[in-house]
Structure formats: C-alpha cells, structure tokens
C-alpha cells in the first residue's frame, strides 16, 4: 500500500463519507469464507418473507400508522443491536479471526437530510428498502428486477453527480 498515492487518498475520502469499508479487515480470505454471509442472508430472507417485511402492504400500513408490526420489528432490532454493540464495546470482543472490532463513526452531511427524504419517498411506493428488494425477487416477483436495476441506476447517477450536490 502506498498511502500517499493521490488516487488512494481520494478513494479513502469518498469511502469515509458513508463509512464504506473504512474498518475493512486486512485479512485475505478465500472466496468460500463468504458462505458465512450467504448463510445469514438466507436466514434474513426467510425472516423477510415469514414476518412479511418484504410486503408492500406492510410498509404501507406502517406509514399509515395503522399497524404496530413494522415498528415492533425495527424497534426490537435496534434494541438488540444496541445491546450487542454495548456488550462488544464493554468486553472488547474480537472477531473470530482475532481482530479488534471497530465501528466507524458517521459524520453528518446534508445528504442525511435530502437523500434520506428521497429514499423515504421511494420506499413508500416500491414497498422496499434495498434488502427487501432482493427478497421480493427471490420470492418470485420477477418484475422487481426492473426496480432493482433502476435502484442501481439511481446509485450510479448519484456517484456521477455527487460533486454537484449539496453535502
């Protein structure tokens, strides 16, 4: 690694903005180590179907405040997540590969306001945030492939014009 190479510095700066990979491990693993992520993804996908998180109707109900279901799921998830982070920090837990666990802090930028609002608009009509998009496709709604491609296009357009957007 040459940390003073200009393209690497730029790379790190753009990555820190949304904390992508800033804590990434230096360890190199063979590709099949990713089976652990596939396994949890499968569990996540099953939960998304069985608790109807991928359902457009459930998301609609949530935004109409007509059901506690989705609020219960997100609220419980945050509580379990927060408790886990607390325990990890208190016990100085290590990863299974012996590395120190590090959670990067997010720095505020105006995108957290404008971008998040735009995402909210999209979430309420597609009935899906990015995770459930993949779940909807797996559940057999093949037309959602179009929604996913459009979301990828949206991410690309953001990357293309990000210098011109207020941050």
């Amino acid at each position: 690694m040459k940390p003073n190479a200009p393209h690497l510095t730029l790379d790190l700066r753009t990555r820190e903005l949304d904390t992508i990979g800033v804590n990434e491990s230096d360890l190199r693993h063979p590709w099949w180590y990713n089976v652990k992520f596939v396994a949890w993804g499968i569990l996540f996908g099953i939960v998304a179907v069985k608790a109807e998180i991928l359902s457009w109707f459930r998301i609609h109900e949530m935004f109409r405040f007509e059901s506690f279901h989705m609020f219960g799921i997100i609220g419980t998830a945050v509580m379990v997540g927060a408790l886990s982070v607390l325990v990890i920090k208190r016990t100085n837990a290590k990863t299974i590969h012996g590395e120190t666990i590090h959670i990067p802090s997010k720095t505020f930028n105006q995108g957290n306001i404008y971008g998040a609002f735009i995402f909210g608009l999209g979430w309420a009509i597609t009935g899906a945030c990015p995770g459930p998009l993949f779940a909807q496709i797996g559940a057999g709604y093949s037309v959602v492939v179009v929604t996913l491609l459009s979301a990828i296009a949206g991410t690309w357009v953001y990357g293309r014009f990000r210098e011109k957007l207020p941050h």
Partner: protein
Amino acid sequence: MLELIRQPWPWYVAGVIIGLTVPYLLIIGNKTFGLSSSLRHVCAACIPAGIPFFRYAWKKEAWSLFFVGGIALGAYIAVHWLSDPAPIRLAASTSERLAAQGLIDTSSLMPAEIFSWSSLFTLRGFLFMVVGGFMVGFGTRYGGGCTSGHAIMGLSSLQWPSLVATIMFMLGGVVMTWLILPLLLGL
C-alpha cells in the same frame, strides 16, 4: 415444529433475528450492517465509468453481494417450502381504504394490480417500479444508508447523523403515503 415455522412470524421474533445481524457481522468479519452499499458495489463492479466514487477495491466488499444473494435465496426457500397458505392479515382499515383506491387483491405480499410485467408499461407501473426504484438507489446513497445502515446499525451504535436520516426517510415515506400515493393510485 414445521407447522409453527409455517405460520407468519411475530414482530418480536423477526426483530430479534434482524437485530442479531449487527453482532453477527461484526464478529465474523468486522463488517457493519448496511445493505444499500451492495448497489454501489454493483456499480463499481459493472459500470464504474472512471467515476471516483466507484473506483475502489469492490472485491474486498464482495461479502455484501454474497449477503444480498443469500437474502434472495432465503426468500425463495421461505416461499416454496415454509409458506403459509392463508392470505396476509392486514389491518382492516388498510385493506378497506386500499380497496376503495382500486387495490382489491391483498391475498399476496405485493399488490397484484401494480407489480406485474403487464403493468410495467403503464404510467402508474412505471412510476411505482422505475421511478420508485431510482429514488431508492439515489436516495440511499445520497443519504449515506438505508433502513439497515442508518435505522438499525446507526441507531444501535448511537450515531446522531443516523437519527437525522431515519427521521427524514420516515418523513419521506409519510409524505409519499399520505399526500402523493392517493394521486398515483388514481392514475
């Protein structure tokens, strides 16, 4: 046992499993939970076009693509082998209002009147799927994350920018659902 699994799962079971994603990812690989980044990695892998935002070693982030691949697979498994034949139980007020707005079929997970290939080429279908998807992809990246990255991971680690983002995307959803959606459903 299988009978129990086949029934719809209550919110607290789903909430606990989704919450446990946070420590699982941290412990097995020092990864922070966030799913919208996978869209960025697809851009970096397939269409970087020399844009600095997509010029990074995406292969090191490939775990996220394996994770979302697993989500699709898990959903397939659940629908084919663990599904409950009964229709989704919506709040009565929700299904009544939707029926009045033309969404009568609430038997499956998605409104059949909108999310189909035949509806894709209507103005309404185009707005729901193509424009909606674009807003999800653009908005999550501009906002720095989605429900998993901000609401769950961000709030769990007490990051105030994530609280701002969560409030803003809930607000966006409320504005769409209450003010804009009734007009779109009438198209």
